[in-house]
């Protein structure tokens, strides 16, 4: 099983690497993007993975930073997952910039910074955030949870998560030209859904692991039981912000929300709503489902699929209505379907994050707690 699983991930990584190489050599022309819909699937991948990482970082900090000691058994796992999702998230963004010549230009983030740009803050803060998450995991792995370094990097990773997350929210929040990004409401939407998708990854990764490794150690049952309940609450909260966003989007008289209303009538919005929120919420409030491993695996998978589509909904809602002179010779709403290369980037991100986690499960004793 293990060999087959690693072989499968290897194939995914190889296909993904071929895609990434094509993008780096030829540029973004291989994506089905254009000047109207210019932030598409790879950007949705970035949002999905980076926000999931934010949720996981917070969860992994519960015992070490907030003193909720009962959650130690999941902290190392959450910490590795945070690093893996953050890495692939940043990779998705890098593969959404351009060919190698453009990637070289990123040196100007350091030598020609623009402090009034939220994108600049986001890039820099995510750089530090990833470093701190990696160093934090290093300390945890060496069982130095409570050393000076361990504590410092746990706090720093959390702090940088908040800062990077804030910068990301402001990127959309200040886009006055595109109210379809829902302005600063997006910060709230991101906060709740980031936590929900982080929790979904933790629930899925843990229970899938226990399913294949012969069950959950007895002493961890109350921990994961609590997490399941928390997961149910989080899906409920995500459903609440989803409804709030729908109310804003549907009741606004501004034409800028027509794109959102258009997207809301499509399949991807329905997937976000039904698969990502309503169905898993119903599943999770039924105690017998919430206590079953299969129920948890299914519900968390559903949430993640829905959240991914949700990121695309958010991006496309603000873009599919051509703006200014771009509306010339175009229909009121443009259509978009990802190219094989865009799917390839997501495949790479998914395979790579799963590979890192699987290596962690196999070699890094992810349920280790402080002695």
């Amino acid at each position: 099983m293990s060999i087959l699983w690693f072989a499968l991930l290897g194939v995914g990584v190889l296909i993904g690497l071929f895609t990434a190489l094509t993008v780096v050599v030829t540029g973004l022309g291989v994506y089905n993007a254009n000047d109207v819909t210019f932030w598409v699937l790879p950007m949705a991948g970035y949002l999905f993975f980076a926000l999931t990482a934010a949720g996981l970082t917070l969860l992994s900090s519960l015992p070490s930073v907030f003193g909720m000691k009962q959650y130690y058994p999941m902290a190392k796992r959450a910490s590795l997952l945070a690093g893996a999702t953050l890495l692939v998230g940043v990779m998705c963004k890098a593969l959404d910039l351009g060919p190698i010549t453009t990637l070289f230009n990123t040196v100007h983030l350091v030598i020609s910074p623009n402090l009034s740009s939220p994108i600049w803050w986001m890039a820099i803060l995510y750089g530090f955030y990833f470093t701190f998450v990696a160093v934090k995991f290093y300390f945890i792995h060496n069982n130095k949870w409570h050393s000076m370094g361990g504590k410092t990097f746990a706090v720093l990773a959390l702090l940088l998560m908040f800062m990077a997350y804030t910068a990301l929210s402001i990127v959309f929040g200040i886009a006055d030209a595109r109210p379809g990004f829902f302005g600063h409401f997006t910060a709230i939407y991101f906060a709740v859904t980031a936590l929900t998708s982080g929790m979904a990854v933790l629930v899925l990764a843990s229970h899938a692991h226990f399913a294949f490794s012969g069950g959950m150690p007895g002493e961890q049952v109350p921990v994961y039981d609590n997490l399941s309940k928390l997961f149910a609450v989080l899906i409920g909260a995500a459903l609440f912000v989803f409804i709030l966003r729908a109310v804003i989007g549907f009741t606004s008289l501004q034409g800028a929300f027509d794109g959102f209303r258009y997207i809301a009538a499509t399949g991807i919005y329905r997937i976000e709503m039904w698969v990502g929120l309503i169905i898993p919420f119903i599943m999770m409030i039924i105690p017998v489902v919430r206590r079953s491993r299969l129920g948890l695996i299914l519900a968390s998978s559903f949430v993640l699929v829905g959240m991914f589509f949700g990121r695309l909904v958010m991006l496309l809602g603000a873009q599919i209505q051509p703006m200014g002179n771009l509306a010339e010779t175009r229909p009121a709403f443009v259509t978009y379907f990802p190219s094989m290369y865009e799917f390839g980037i997501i495949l790479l991100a998914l395979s790579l994050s799963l590979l890192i986690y699987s290596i962690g499960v196999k070699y890094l004793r992810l349920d280790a707690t402080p002695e």
Partner: protein
Amino acid sequence: MPNYAMVIDLQLCTGCGGCIIGCKNENNLPEGVRWSNKMTETLGRFPNVRYHYRPTLCNHCENAPCVRGCPTRALHKIEGGITAHDPDKCIGCRYCMVNCPYGVPNYTWDRPHKEWQDTTELIEGATYSPKALVDAVDAKGWPIFNPDPDVGYKAIRPVGVIEKCHFCPHRVREGLLPYCVEVCPSHARVFGDLDDPNSKVNELLGMFRAERLRPELGTRPKVFYIREFCPCVYERSKGAI
């Protein structure tokens, strides 16, 4: 230091698109990219129908959101308040495309003028292939390559960065007009210094009620439209139903 602006007289504009073509030639724009553009609108019900034509370009906003949001200062202000772009600093993040309310920045998705690299002859042995033609006239990129914008910008911008109208600073510095103004056959475009009380742009702004695009966003565009063209007369009525 001048403060450049443009006034477009909609009564003089015939909608010929000469500015669009002129800009493409002057700045070697790749297929599908337009710095100088247009917005049209058709209103009414047949037979009472009207077609409105408005030439557009970068508004060189005083309060440019594209400049504020650009992470590496690739978009920046140069002399005269021109919103300029440096392709060597551009990281292709396309945040300017999010922030510009007018749809001005274009991202170069493919190698520019790549169709001119085609070696297929239309009639074998009788016509040039696109590539042979470019080589024959010793041009770069496409046969009518203009090297002039190389001063301060890149004559042809590379793949993977954005590009946009720059008010032709390579011409303005030489005392010439931006090329769209130069080629406009009906003199509908007037370019000048807003800080010079005697400039033509100020004369026109002092005479006519000017309109700017999406002023409510606070971008303070520096392209002004005057004299919406309408030759019609109609019979007055008392609020007919």
